[in-house]
């Protein structure tokens, strides 16, 4: 599934990030820690249209617009935290 579809407070693991090389936003996402194998969790959504969403990766939280989060593919992690 896409990171943009991840429900709140569910832990998932990143399986891939689109747009290798060409897309500066995907490039930046990887620099911020959105890399394969990293665990992510949506901790909050904004009031209007639930966009942007707040995503915890590593020790840090980033506000991502849904269109930005669409570049990240995730898989639900079996044992929830």
């Amino acid at each position, binding site marked *: 599934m896409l990171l943009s579809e991840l429900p709140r407070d569910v832990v998932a693991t990143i399986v891939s990030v689109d747009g*290798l*090389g060409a897309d*500066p*936003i995907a*490039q*930046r*996402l*990887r*620099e*911020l*820690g959105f*890399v*394969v194998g*990293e665990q992510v969790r949506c*901790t*909050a*959504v*904004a*009031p*209007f*249209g639930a*966009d*942007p969403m*707040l995503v*915890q990766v*590593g*020790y*840090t*939280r*980033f*506000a*991502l*617009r849904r*269109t*930005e989060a669409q570049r990240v593919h995730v898989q639900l992690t079996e044992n929830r935290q």
Partner: protein
Amino acid sequence: MNPSSTQPSHTAQIALIGNPNCGKTSLFNRLTGTRQKVANYAGVTVERKEGRLQLPSGRSLKILDLPGAYSLQATSPDEAITRAVCLGELAGEARPDLLVCVVDATNLRLHLRFVLELRALGRPMLLVLNMMDDAARRGIQIDQDLLSKKIGLPVVTTIATQANGVQGLLQQLDLDWQNWIVAPETSKTDQSQPDLHQPDLHQQVRELLAETVSMPALTDQRDDRLDRILLHPVWGLLCLALIMFMIFQAVFAGAAPLMDGIETLFAGISDLVSAQMPDGVLKSLVVDGIIAGVGGVVVFLPQILILFLFILLLEESGYLPRAAFLLDRLMFKSGLSGRSFIPLLSSFACAVPGVMATRSIQDPRDRLATIMVAPLMTCSARLPVYALLIGAFIPAQTVAGLFNLQGLVLFGLYVAGVASALAVSWLMKKIHRDRTEHALLLELPSYRVPSWRSVSLGLYERASIFLKRVGGIILALTILLWFLASFPAPPDGATGAAIDYSFAGQLGHLMAPIFAPLGFSWQICIALIPAMAAREVVVAALGTVYALSGNDDLLSQQLSPLIADQWSLATALSLLVWFVFAPQCIATLATVRRETGSWRQVSIMTAYLFGLAYLMAMLTYQAAVALGWG
């Protein structure tokens, strides 16, 4: 041997570098105090902060506070500067002799990646673990010696918010740092193939952390609790509204007496000088040109200081990006970003601090769009004009048994400003050639207690930038307007108002046919010229044109029946609409010049606002005449 790495005879230059939110600026403030210079890098609007610091041995160093960056693969002008300085590619900027790499000890997973990227440059480097007090509070344990060994660099810890929190760093900087270099491992980092190195760096950080850091929880309990309320769809918005309301109240209620005080002070000075000097051109220049001009600059300070006090507190505490998160969707739809909200709200008090506050928007396109529409927010200087015209022309009757018609018209003028700002930014987005997606990707940092030291230094910085860079332009233009309104002097035996014979008067008469479709008389046209200095000046200028005298309140009382008698309702409505749009404020234009670094943007803004003002006022006048109000 590399000439730049020999022990330099000149004062060595070191640079603080790190991710945004690593506490770098607090550290810079702690190290340098007021011994810092703030300017812009040549040709761009990125802030350049340099200071001097005294080491325990008595040696002094130049220290540069580089803009925060997540990576050397720059995605913003800030990051491009940081990259260029690190690589020694920025013209006129010496390559730093030592990179002092600052990381937040509670956010090592993210920050160490950048450290590893910088380490590959093969330059002398020092790692600073900052915010050690927060790390201790959260039970984070870092094996400093092992980390230093693994990473190959000296490691020191700091607490930038405490007076004695940087001793270790100062002692370390006194040592010989020439060999604090990690030789690039295999090949040199190939900048054209960054992707190949990305996963490696993240993997290396994971391994480093596993070996050297023990962390009880990923996040701070305190942040989690606060975010549950402050980011809640209902409570979060309510808190935001409450905070904004408080700021607004403080700016309006707090600044007004101070501004009155400054105006009284300058009126006193000009009376004093008037009494001492013989009548003539020189006296007029000093009193009406210079003193009035300086007063016109200083009068903005209370609003700027109060507003920035709050903005700095919100920024330091970590709330500002959260406000941007809450409102991003609304702002994004109209071609702005969540970060535009605070500058635009500030512009209701005054567009000058509003435009200055756009510095918190990193994306240049979003920042420019915000600056362009900021003057459409109804600033407090429009109120005297609105009050005069509404008082004279709109009957104080009750509408629908509840609302005061005068209040409704005033409210309508505010709404017109906001609606047109959103429409203009939306239109700018539509016609913009650059359609690439600009990311939000906004880090929400941990909440922190603001440091008074950083807040007061920030305020001092804002005030001096305004006085030095903007004040000069305002003063020059005020003197120009004085010249236009004073020369040539009326001939002997002249009967009309003196201004009528001046260049401004002649201009006003020339303008009259152009402004006839708007219903403006030649008197109004003349008054518009000195009112370029500031909108509220139009009241005094109308007084001058109609040869009245007295203070502003008295003028308003005298003017009100006079214009009610001489102007039609259509003319009054048209003039009200004119002031919603017209860029009648050289202080704003001067600030835009300073903040965009470009006269071209100032011309575009001036042209579009005058165009819009002309069009809307004409439509209003013609519609009102058609309704029989002419």
